[in-house]
């Protein structure tokens, strides 16, 4: 006969963990990264599941081990960990080592998928859209769109994945079909690249200064001629050059230095205006 379930996390505990999960990264430190943050967010659950102080100590030490993932994906890991801790507390065959290894197994693979999607695609797109709203004269609507849009998506995602992880437990790990995730990433990359292609010529401000005096008293500006050929061709060329440099391991800080040299030097010799 199965043992009766003695300890259960209430909905209140889960909300409490959810609220704390939003401060996970504050104690970011070099040797063990987000370890203290993760331990901090597990505390409401530890208190509920382990009335005995030695068990509490063991659980806290378990979660102070090195941890690092993409902060929003941490909610899924948190959900799974909550389910495992609950089983552990109820005497089911879930060992201390298993809890640790599931966390480690999930943190790397989830961060690898989620970092580019959240920071590399979704934030640039949403914030560039918000900036466009400001440039188009919508004023405060721009920042509000970014702030509300970002946080509604983030909070829903965090809560839903934490719940899902908690309900599915360890099977959530196998439930993550990597093929679906890969397709999602690829689709997001396509939209992102397409929109970046449009943003590059529109929001790079660069004007060539030289103009030519053609026979017959006509003055033609180089920039106008270039715009007739292909608007934004100069920003395009510079962006592609920067991508090429990044792919050859040139650090972004040096690119900034390069832009300063190009901007100041180009103005000085009368190339840009």
């Amino acid at each position, binding site marked *: 006969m199965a043992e009766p379930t003695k300890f259960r996390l209430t909905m209140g505990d889960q909300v409490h963990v959810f609220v704390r999960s939003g401060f996970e*990264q*504050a*104690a970011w*430190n070099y040797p*063990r990264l987000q*370890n203290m943050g993760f*331990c*901090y967010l597990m*505390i409401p659950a530890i208190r509920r599941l382990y009335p005995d*102080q030695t068990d509490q*100590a063991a659980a*806290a*030490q378990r979660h*102070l081990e090195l941890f*690092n993932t993409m902060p929003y994906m941490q909610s899924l890991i948190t959900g799974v960990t909550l389910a495992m801790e609950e089983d552990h507390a109820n005497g089911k065959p879930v060992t201390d080592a298993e809890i640790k290894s599931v966390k480690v197994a999930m943190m790397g693979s989830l*961060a690898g998928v989620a*970092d580019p999607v959240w920071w*590399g*695609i979704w*934030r*640039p797109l949403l*914030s560039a859209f918000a*900036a466009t709203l*400001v*440039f*188009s004269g919508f*004023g405060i609507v*721009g*920042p509000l769109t*970014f*702030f509300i849009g*970002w*946080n509604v998506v983030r909070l829903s995602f965090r809560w839903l994945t934490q719940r899902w992880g908690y309900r599915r437990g360890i099977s959530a790990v196998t439930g993550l079909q990597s093929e679906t995730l890969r397709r999602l990433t*690829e*689709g997001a990359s*396509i939209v*992102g*690249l*397409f*929109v*970046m292609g*449009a943003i*590059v*010529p*529109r*929001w790079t401000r660069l004007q060539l200064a030289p103009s030519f005096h053609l026979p017959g008293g006509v003055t033609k500006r180089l920039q106008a001629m270039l715009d007739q050929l292909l608007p934004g061709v100069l920003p395009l060329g510079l962006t592609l050059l920067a*991508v090429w440099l*990044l*792919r050859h391991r040139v650090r*972004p*800080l040096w*690119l*900034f230095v390069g*832009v300063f040299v190009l*901007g*100041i*030097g*180009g*103005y*000085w010799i009368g190339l840009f205006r």
Partner: protein
Amino acid sequence: MNLEFWGILLVAFLAGLEGVIDEWEFHQPIVACALVGLVTGNLVAGLALGASLQLVTLGWMNIGSAVAPDAALGAVGAAWLVTGPAQLPVAMGVIMAIPLAVVGLWLTRGLRRIIVPLVARADRAASRGNLGQITALQLMSIGLQGLRVVIPMAILLALPSAWMTTAYQWLPITLRGGLRVTAGLLVIVSFAIVINMMASRRLWPFFFMGFACATDSHLNLIALVMIGVALAVIYLNLKSKDQHPQGGGPTSSADDDLDRELDDL
């Protein structure tokens, strides 16, 4: 002045905390500069700076254990210089944000080491089963992350704003023009970082399609996103159709390997 001072330090605290925890995104220039503009009563300049600076910081992201330049100190500091009494032009605000963000980056790295003793105390608390102390240590870290931007901002606020204005006026005209050009060009770096993350050999064509569509100035960003989403759906549908008859398997993984090798070139 007093209310303004505390208001800006409050924004600095939120931005400093967010620059590390990356949740509510108060440190993103489009939000931070608008808030500073609201406090100084110069919202319009704050919004303009925020939007320009947002495009410059588009590619600054903390991934893994790498630390990007700190948008928080860059945005709050620049917004004070532009919307505060110094009244620098927006382009100069964008320029000033860069050194401030680099200072913020150093402070972030330093703080990640300063927190190490706190974590050692958390270890000791854990071994005694003292959970309350771990919570307290985490709250202390939250405070430290906020102070990471509050302290440099307090210093910046204490400097007479006339210094900045005078320094700016002393700049030779050529240099001022050059910096204005640079401010417009800085976006390139972030654009390249973002593109570099997404682009693979197969997906590059979508970038050029977007570029070509942008030449029609009637297409706004919403319309462009719609075209982009439609293209992504078409591409993924066609791709899965192609793969099913072969059953995926070894063919597709060999393909992926080839793709990766080509990307490495």
